[in-house]
């Protein structure tokens, strides 16, 4: 599985067997992040199907509101593809708590996805 680097946003994916880690870092502030994020994230689904995935947003420094739909699309696809997904955010960061707590609420509708502040 390939890593992702466009402008100031980087996504690194690692792991073997049934356990994978995805780490987001930098800043997502392009005009239409979905244009570049959706094809990349969709492309991972086949390889991750049925596996465990931890998504780490703790090193993400900034995201604009246009980044939210690709993230939601991604977590919904993880749920649909039976990927047991844990999303971690940095609870000491005020902006991350404010951004990811609502996602935590929405993700209670999904069976395979949980969102945790660490």
């Amino acid at each position, binding site marked *: 599985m390939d890593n992702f680097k466009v402008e100031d946003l980087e996504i690194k994916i690692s792991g073997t067997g049934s356990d994978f880690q995805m780490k987001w870092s930098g800043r997502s*502030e*392009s*005009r239409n992040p979905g244009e570049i994020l959706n094809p990349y994230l969709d492309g991972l689904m086949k390889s991750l199907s049925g596996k465990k995935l931890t998504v780490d947003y703790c090193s993400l420094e*900034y995201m*604009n*509101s*246009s980044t*939210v*739909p*690709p993230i*939601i*699309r991604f977590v*919904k696809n993880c749920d649909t593809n039976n990927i047991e997904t844990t999303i971690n955010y940095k609870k000491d*960061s*005020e*902006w991350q708590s*404010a*951004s990811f707590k*609502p*996602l935590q*609420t*929405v993700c209670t*509708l999904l069976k395979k996805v949980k969102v945790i502040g660490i």
Partner: protein
Amino acid sequence: MKARIQVEVSPVWGVINETKSKIKGLMLEDGASQGMADFTEIVVSELLENAIKYGYENNFLPYVSVKFDLTDTSVTVKVSNGIREDDNLDGFKKIMQKIETTENKESLYIERLMEIMENPDAKGSQFGLYRIVSECGFNLSFTAENHVLEVIAIRNF
């Protein structure tokens, strides 16, 4: 704390980063908390993004104006841009009306997230204004007159 910036910028994407970085840096230098500086960065960015995406250069305002004012008791961000009477402006007014008439701003934010969950491929997140009031805790108001829209975000400490 006391800081003030007023800039007139071209409506191009590249100015967003420069403007918000300048304001955030000024806030941190002036003793604002990291959290407040981060929230203000989000507010500046979301308002500027909207101005650039949906605004129009016209004879009344051929640029985007950003005013930032930090005092001991509040932070204020005002972003102005040229407008036309069109669907974008109607959509903006509807969202603002929803914000003004809803006591629990977080419920609007969650509702919008649910809509995105239902249809993540819909065009335009239409999410920035909800983010400003719910995530960042700013109050929003606006004026739309003489072909100019001014959006005002204020947070009291």
